[in-house]
């Protein structure tokens, strides 16, 4: 067993263990950091697989992405710090069954298939190859990814902005209360009070 084999199994165990911890920890911030560690372990495996550019890019991307995720956890979710024990799941047994079935099916496919064996040559300039491919033969695919990201930016702003082009996005819509029969959630109807205010002034 070579050193890279030992490193591979250590990182694999780390990736799977931290992936499991994501759904088993009470703290949602800890869950996002566990996910980040799982990505880092996979990035280390990519480095072992002689894909240095992809490995380092994954580390950079996930470091930022998981910080954003932790921020959203604190903003939106209850119990971000894990002070109370918590288990928010539905259809739990079906989900466990689906997860186990996916693992068993994919694992069986991996074990039973006659896989090709053709490793990357040791001195192959893989990063240079990637650059030539991105800005050469596959430039259209690469640019399509860029356009898709631009469309994503537009969609993100449209979805998350408070007001649309013609006024408030949630105008005329009052969400139901947080408890049955409770006070309606969401913003108070400022419009009505504004109208009466103006009416008083006008009168």
């Amino acid at each position: 067993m070579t050193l890279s084999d030992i490193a591979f199994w250590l990182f694999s165990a780390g990736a799977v263990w931290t992936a499991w911890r994501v759904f088993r920890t009470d703290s949602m911030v800890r869950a996002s950091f566990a996910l980040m560690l799982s990505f880092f372990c996979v990035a280390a495996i990519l480095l072992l697989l002689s894909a240095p550019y992809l490995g380092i890019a994954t580390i950079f991307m996930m470091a930022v992405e998981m910080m954003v995720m932790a921020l959203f956890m604190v903003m939106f979710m209850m119990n971000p710090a894990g002070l109370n024990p918590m288990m928010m799941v539905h259809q739990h047994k079906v989900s466990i069954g689906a997860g186990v079935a996916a693992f068993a099916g994919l694992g069986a496919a991996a074990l039973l298939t006659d896989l090709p064996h053709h490793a990357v040559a040791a001195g192959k300039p893989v990063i240079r190859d990637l650059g030539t491919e991105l800005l050469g033969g596959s430039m259209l695919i690469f640019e399509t990814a860029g356009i898709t990201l631009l469309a994503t930016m537009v969609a993100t702003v449209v979805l998350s902005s408070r007001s649309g082009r013609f006024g408030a996005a949630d105008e005329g819509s009052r969400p139901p209360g947080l408890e049955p029969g409770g006070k309606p959630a969401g913003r108070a109807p400022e419009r009505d009070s504004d109208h009466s205010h103006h009416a008083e002034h006008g009168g």
Partner: protein
Amino acid sequence: MTLTAILLVAAALIGIGLYGALSQQSFVMLMMGLELILNGVLLIAVGFWSLGLGGPPRGQLLAIVVMAVMAIEMAVGFALVTAVYRKRQADTTEGLETMKH
């Protein structure tokens, strides 16, 4: 480090991710499950590229497309979470029973 071992690790990641995506009630935890599935897909793509096919440049391109999909999934997912929270004060999947407002 064989291709079979890499595919098994990736299968474990995909299985855990599928469990998370199906079982979690919180939107953000659900997205974490989807991210884990894509993590496994990335590992499979690079595994085949590196150990099975002798490093063709287009294999790395596929991995980059997977990473772009990850970024897009996160961005649109968070935008949807923001929109749903603003509309209905909902942060769990049970808070959404209809797609109308």
